[in-house]
């Protein structure tokens, strides 16, 4: 099954810029469906980016992050061809992980 995580990591030599887009409903738990019932909260709580076995960025999210969440950051280092590992876990205990190559 295809990963929910899309990553674009580009190295400019000095720094690596990372953008990620993840397929996830990010239900806040405040929205009602057509029947008027609350759609239960369902959102990614933690998203981690690791390079060289160490976290370079950790996102703690709530239901206030948009559906199909996006994040952008940059870190020093990172070479073309190196791996960047991205993982998330949501409030239901589901998770996904992927490894992307830095371009």
């Amino acid at each position, binding site marked *: 099954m295809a990963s929910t995580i899309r990553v674009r990591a580009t190295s400019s030599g000095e*720094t690596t810029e990372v953008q990620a887009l993840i397929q996830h409903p990010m239900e*806040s*738990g*405040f929205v009602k469906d057509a029947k008027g019932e609350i759609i*239960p*909260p369902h*959102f990614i*709580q*933690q998203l*981690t980016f*690791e390079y060289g*076995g*160490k*976290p*370079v*960025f*950790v*996102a*703690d*999210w*709530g*239901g*206030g*992050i*948009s*559906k199909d*969440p*996006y*994040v*952008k*950051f*940059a*870190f*020093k*280092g990172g070479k073309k061809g190196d791996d960047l590992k991205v*993982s998330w*876990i*949501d*409030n*239901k*205990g*589901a998770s996904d992980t992927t490894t992307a190559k830095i371009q």
Partner: protein
Amino acid sequence: MTKTDDGLSATRRLILQGAGAVALVVLGSAFGNLPFGLAPAFAAANDKYPEEAFKAKSEADAIKALYGKTPEASDKVKVDAPEIAENGAVVPVSVTTTLPDVTSISFLVTENPVVLVASYKIPAGTMPSVGNRIKMAKTSNVIVVVEAGGKLYSATKEVKVTVGGCGG
């Protein structure tokens, strides 16, 4: 109410009680190796989801739960957000700062039912700037808090949110 009973506690570790005064600089050592005797302000580990902070109803409570301090306004924190959100469901907001030794950046929306939207851990070597897309329930202040050198700074921008469209 954001219910987190289901998944987190079963799989993750303890939640940090706010932040200590000392900013922890992570050097070459494997993460998790904290200098003993120091209350961990920040552990470069992929755990410690700030559950309490995500339950807070006011920005003061959320910030207190996250950092245990109060921020001072700083013009060195630059928030980039639209004047009028195209749609409250997806508002692109980013922040950048010239403050040194940034360890954490958080986004809060005062009029949201859950004020804290996101909190980012910035390990040493990661640039102090973040871009994300947030939900805004209505016109509100967007507050960005930056923890740098053990102190807390903030900047605020008002973003208008309208319900628009022809009969929609």
